[in-house]
């Protein structure tokens, strides 16, 4: 049996997909092609590359062999037709929308998104005259009720933040498809090791690679993966199906079939918006993917142990980890996240803002910073940092209490993490009533 007929496992594909030994040098590690541009063999080849008649390298804003290896590896792990990498997760997300949407279109999105995504959608869409409705993602009726004749896509996260909302991907995807539109899912918190949204009907997956994919908090990056399954020629997406004025009349879906959306995303949107991933960052992300399944197992096991510990502590009001047996999302976790419900979650201290300050100040192993998905454990108190301008009422509307703490659990020894959290909780003096 040849390699082509073998169904290789996730760990094997994490290490090998997208990167064969370099044909020119034999280098086994992924070479970093630190070059802005590429010498053409001849004039005919140059024309063929720019016309997209041949797969060729022209300029690293649009493609780069190191970046391509990362793209293919991620696409393979997600089960997609391909991927396009971007300079950040938010760049990947905005490029996804920019490729699909036109003024007058409308989007329905989960209200339980990462704060940066909420801001991006609210303000970018307003400037582009694109309509937007945020919905509580837990009730299918909310999604259904928000659809309009102009709605072109649904958008949500596999695991939401800060509530730990788990998306019923199959149901939301079915609603999207019944109405002739794709479901776009941000799979950053789950990674393809814990959940592959396309297996459940999602059409496009976006990632902040900065988090678990890179895994070590070294680099900013993002990516878009497309399943290649959505029918862009259904009459609702002339922007993909019709001849493109931005590419000398090329009809991307007809010409490239299942690769049409990705080609347009790369050859037009990445070309025009310019937020390309650097080759060095792509090397680090491809390297990160090699150990993704190993790290994720430790992340989720540690996170569950920490959540268990916190849920019995008398200074803790509640723990919002979807993997706990009493979580409202326990059923959805069984379906969509059987290997673990992620490693980023929030809990609430009884003592409000002052308790949050005291708790963070006493920690000595958790790093106090604004990121998640690092090998190192991270902590932040939204009410005194990222959301400090908000009143208690405004915090509550965002699902954040004055005593809410967000943890990103790393791959250290769980016993050491619990030790640190225990001493942090011991230092909390504030007893103020929690205000809902």
């Amino acid at each position: 049996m040849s390699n082509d007929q073998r169904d290789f496992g996730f760990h094997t594909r994490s290490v090998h997909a997208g990167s064969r030994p370099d044909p020119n040098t034999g280098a086994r590690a992924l070479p970093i092609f630190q070059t802005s541009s590429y010498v053409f063999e001849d004039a005919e080849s140059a024309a063929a590359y720019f016309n997209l008649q041949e797969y060729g390298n022209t300029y690293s804003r649009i493609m780069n062999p190191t970046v391509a290896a990362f793209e293919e590896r991620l696409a393979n792990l997600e089960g997609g037709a391909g991927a396009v990498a971007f300079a950040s997760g938010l760049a990947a997300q905005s490029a996804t929308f920019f490729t699909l949407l036109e003024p007058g279109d409308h989007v329905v999105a989960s209200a339980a998104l990462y704060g940066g995504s909420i801001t991006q959608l609210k303000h970018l869409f307003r400037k582009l005259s694109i309509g937007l409705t945020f919905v509580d993602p837990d009730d299918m009726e909310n999604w259904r009720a928000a659809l309009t004749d102009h709605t072109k896509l649904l958008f949500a996260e596999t695991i939401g933040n800060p509530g730990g909302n788990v998306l019923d991907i199959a149901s939301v995807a079915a609603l999207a498809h019944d109405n002739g539109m794709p479901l776009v899912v941000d799979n950053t918190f789950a990674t393809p090791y814990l959940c592959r949204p396309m297996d459940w009907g999602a059409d496009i997956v976006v990632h902040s690679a900065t988090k678990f994919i890179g895994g070590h908090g070294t680099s900013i990056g993002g990516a878009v993966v497309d399943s290649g399954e959505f029918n862009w020629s259904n009459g609702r997406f002339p922007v993909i199906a019709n001849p493109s004025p931005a590419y000398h009349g090329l009809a991307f879906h007809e010409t490239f079939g299942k690769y049409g959306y990705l080609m347009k995303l790369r050859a037009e949107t990445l070309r025009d918006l310019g937020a390309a991933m650097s080759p060095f960052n792509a090397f680090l992300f491809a390297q990160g993917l090699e150990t993704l399944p190993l790290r994720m197992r430790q992340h989720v096991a540690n996170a569950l142990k920490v959540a268990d510990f916190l849920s019995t502590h008398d200074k803790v009001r509640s723990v919002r980890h979807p993997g706990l047996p009493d979580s409202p999302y326990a059923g959805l976790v069984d379906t969509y996240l059987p290997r673990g419900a992620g490693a980023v979650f929030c809990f609430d201290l009884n003592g409000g803002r002052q308790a949050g300050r005291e708790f963070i100040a006493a920690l000595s192993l958790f790093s106090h910073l604004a990121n998640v998905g690092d090998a190192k454990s991270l902590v932040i108190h939204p009410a005194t940092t990222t959301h400090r301008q908000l009143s208690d009422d405004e915090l509550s509307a965002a699902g954040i209490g004055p005593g809410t703490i967000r943890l990103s659990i790393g791959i250290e020894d769980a016993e050491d993490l619990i030790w640190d959290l225990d001493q942090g909780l011991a230092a909390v003096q504030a007893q103020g009533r929690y205000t809902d």
Partner: protein
Amino acid sequence: MRVEDYQDPTVIQAALNERRIAIVGLSSNELRPSHFVGYYMQRHGYQIVPVNPRETEVLDEASYPSLADVPEPVGVVDVFRDPAAVPAIAREAVAMGAKFLWLQYGVISEEGVGIALDSGMQVIVDRCMKVEHARYRGRMHWLGFNTEVISANRKPG
């Protein structure tokens, strides 16, 4: 008919070993998918035989009105036509001794596939010849597509 049954990597790579390809429905319009495939395959050393009654010459090769008019044998018959036209094309492909019937994206004809198989041809359905060449022999991996190729063997530079 399950199209996945006619997408065997071994059959696809055997078809790519042929050197002469009749492309039924090849257009001279550079923006048509058939032209993308014909241009690409010719660039990679294949001899292209255009079959299209509406063309006289495509990619510097004479175009024939039908497969029956092609004077020399071809290894692969690659089809860009309405699925309803495929049974007749399959009969002509059998008559001229072609080894592979290759049906492009969306060209799905159970009857046409049956005719080819019954006469000992090998069949590929709902796959693009350009994409498959790029996957196994070319540079599809340069643009971040999922080739699904997993190998630690060094390819020649």
